[in-house]
Every structure is written in structure tokens, then in C-alpha cells.
């Protein structure tokens, strides 16, 4: 794969049709919008090295309740924009007065973005059996720009990781990751995710992670 470090304004291609994420077209040519890594495939995408998470409908995220209003929980989703979880999006019917009994300020939740309007009002839901309050385990935070690498192509990295470390893992697109399992397993998962975060922009990462897990496990037994 052809990859290159680019800065904003770099000319990437003369073919406007190849414009992908992180690029823009001017006078029929494609330029970079970001400082990051350009991937030259059919489309040219620029993957940023940093930046804030901007919610997109369908994203799974991990949030922390920071306020409760009459019918909404206001949730910090590690983004410039707060998430709104409406009372009707809670899995069971509850009364407005009892909202803080179910999710109080400081509660961590696994949730999904259902809608983002042009003024960046972000609506969340808990209506899925994968989603809900976090009662056990650990939440760690990495840069959201590394999340695609942690998931891997078609989920290859994350499914391998789940199997190898024997942990439940929920990856939030906002860079927050929940791990749940035995103490030692969680430590290993944490170590591995740290490694992926650090070496996110190197080639052949999955193979290296497999080797890493093998040696770590070998050292344990």
C-alpha cells in the first residue's frame, strides 16, 4: 500500500474522482485537508494523526453522564459536542423523577449515536442488548484516530484480540474502550491496546500483535 505523510494543502492527485476522506477538490485536483497519512488506493484518504471526535449516526460510543435534565441525560462523549440520551431511549419505561436512580451523574454507559442534526445536537440510545450501563471492568481512552486500527480490516484485529485475551471488549468510536475479564487478562488487554495505540501507523501491525500476545502468554504460563 502506498502511504505518505502529508500536510494541509498538499496536492494528492489531478483526478478529482479520487477524492476521499480528509481531502478536498479545487480546480479538478485533489488536495489534503489534514496533517496525516495519505493512503493512495482507488480513492485517496487522509488519516489524521490527531483531532477531536465528531459523532456520526450509527457510531457506538462510551459516555459519562454529566447532567440530568427533565427528560434527558446529558452525556460527555469525549467530543466537542455533548450527547443527549432521552428518557424514552432507556430500555424500560421510567418516570422522570426516577432518572437519577437508573443513571446518575458519573455513570459510564455504552451507547449508540442515533442522530446528529446540522446544529450538532447528538441523540443517543440504549435500546440494544449490546448497550447499557457499565457495572464492571475498565474503561481506557485512546485517540479516536487510532480506533480503526484497533478494529482492523473487517474487525480482524478486535476479534483476534477478544479471543486471545479472553475478555469482553466494547470499542467506542470516540476512543473509549471497555474491557471486562479476569484481572490478568485485563492487564494483558490493556498492554496490547496501548501497543496498538502507539504503533498505529506502522505496517504489519496485526502480525506483530499476534507475536506480542504469544510471548506475553508464554511468559505467564
Amino acid at each position, binding site marked *: 500500500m502506498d502511504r505518505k*505523510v502529508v*500536510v*494541509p*494543502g498538499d496536492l494528492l492527485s489531478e483526478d478529482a474522482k479520487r477524492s476521499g476522506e*480528509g481531502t*478536498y477538490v*479545487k480546480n479538478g485536483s485533489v*488536495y489534503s*485537508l*489534514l*496533517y*496525516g*497519512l495519505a493512503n493512495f488506493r482507488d480513492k485517496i484518504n487522509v488519516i*489524521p*494523526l*490527531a*483531532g*477531536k471526535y*465528531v459523532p456520526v449516526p450509527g457510531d457506538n460510543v462510551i459516555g459519562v453522564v454529566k447532567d440530568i435534565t427533565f427528560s434527558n441525560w446529558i452525556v460527555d462523549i469525549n467530543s*466537542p*459536542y*455533548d450527547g443527549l440520551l432521552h428518557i424514552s431511549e432507556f430500555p424500560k419505561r421510567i418516570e422522570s423523577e426516577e432518572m437519577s436512580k437508573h443513571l446518575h451523574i458519573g455513570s*459510564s454507559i455504552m451507547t449508540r449515536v442515533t442522530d446528529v442534526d*446540522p*446544529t*450538532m445536537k447528538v441523540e443517543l440510545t440504549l435500546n440494544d442488548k449490546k448497550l447499557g450501563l457499565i457495572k464492571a471492568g*475498565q*474503561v*481506557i*481512552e*485512546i*485517540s479516536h*484516530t487510532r480506533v480503526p486500527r484497533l478494529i482492523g480490516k473487517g474487525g480482524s484485529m478486535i476479534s483476534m484480540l477478544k479471543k486471545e485475551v479472553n475478555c469482553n471488549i466494547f470499542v467506542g468510536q470516540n476512543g*473509549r474502550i471497555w474491557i471486562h475479564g479476569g484481572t490478568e487478562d485485563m492487564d494483558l488487554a*490493556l498492554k496490547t*491496546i*496501548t501497543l496498538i*495505540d*502507539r*504503533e498505529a*501507523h*506502522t505496517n504489519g501491525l496485526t502480525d506483530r500483535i499476534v507475536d506480542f500476545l504469544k510471548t506475553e502468554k508464554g511468559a505467564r504460563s
Partner: protein
Amino acid sequence: MDETDISFFKDGLRLDGRKADQLRPVKIEVGVLARADGSCYIEMGGNKVIAAVYGPREVHPRHLQEATRAIVRYRYNMASFSVEDRKRPGPDRRSQELSKVSREALEPVILTSFFPRSVIDVFVEVLQADAGTRTAGINAAAVALADAGIPMKSMISSCAAGKVADTIILDPMKEEDNFGQADLPIAMTPNGDITLLQMDGGLTPDEFQRAVEMAMKGARDIYELQRDALVKKYSQMVEQPGREEVHVCD
């Protein structure tokens, strides 16, 4: 002119040994502040400037918020120890003007429409001043914005030209700025769109033309240095990863 000529040039070279169209040495470091989303430290001759970018983030106070785009706030500040006579700390007329023009120099390339209802804060602190702090500040801020992952149409580079002893010179230093006849800072994109142009002093139309061209050439050279600094930061990240840590939350 009179004797002052002699003091500006010696054997065709300037007081610090530069040619008329030569920049002062430039050093750029990216990502120097761990708490900021993006940061940059720059030295341009005797100028030492640090820039920090925060955001996009929530706007406080709320009434400044724009429903359709991000606002950009730029604060240029001189440290009290940055000049020989202590500078009275805090914003003054000069720094307010520089903050405004610098913000307007950068705003045209930032895609503010990507982040409605948010703010991008840019802080520029001058640690040591030696003429041309606004240009150094803009250069540092542009690199810091890129480092923060903020989408921009292009980089911005800034450079000044001046006139001393009836000669057009590039990148005036303190003495040339204080006792010279004109100072003309510009900021531009690498393809030559000018986003800032100021002039202090007097130039004939012909001199003005030449000064602008000289400053643009200087800005292009600075663009290459900004680019190199960003590319270098990436290769360092690959070679010795691990500066960024993972936080364990409760």
C-alpha cells in the same frame, strides 16, 4: 542618506552578516506541549514564540457561539520579559490589533463549517521579541493548527520585508525595524494567496512591489521549513513511539 547608511550595511552585508534577501535562522518544533491539542515552538532569529491550539471545543461564554460554524479565537501575548524594558503584562492596543489581524490571516484556510457551535482557541506567547513577532506567531500557529488535526485548505506562512537606507530587505531584525524606513509583514498560502498585508512607514509603488515579492519568497521558504517540521514529527513518532499514553479511567 547620511551616516546611518553605514551602520545598516557593512561590505554589502547587514549588521548580523545577512544578505539583503536572506532570512534569519529558523527552528521549528512540533508538539511541545502535552496538554494542548496542538502546539509549536518557533525561533526566527531572536524571536522565540510558542503557540498552543485547543479545540474544537465548547464555546464559553455561550453567546459567542455560531450555529453554523466554529469560531476562531487568537490571543497574541507578549511576556513581560520578552523585551528589554519590562512590558506591562496584559492585553494592550498593540496586542489586540495583532490578535485580530493574525486571526484573520489564519481563518480563511480553516474549515470552520466542519465544527458548528464550537471554538478553536489559538494562544501565541512571545517569550523573546526581536522584530517580526507577528509573523513568527502566525507561522507557529499554523503548524500548531495542523498538529491539532484541524482541517485546513492549506498552510499559512508569514514573513516581513522592510526598507532601510533606501534598500529593500527581507525579515528585518530589531535595529532595522526600529530605525528603518518601512516594515511590511505578509502572510500567505503556499500558492500565493495573501491573507495578511500590513505596512508601517513609506514605500514607493515600485518599492512596494519589490518588497511584497521578497516577502512572498521568504514566506515560501518558511513554508518548506514548516512542512519539514511536521514530517519530522511523524517520523519520530514511528521510530520511538510511546510518548502518547493511554489513560485508564475509573
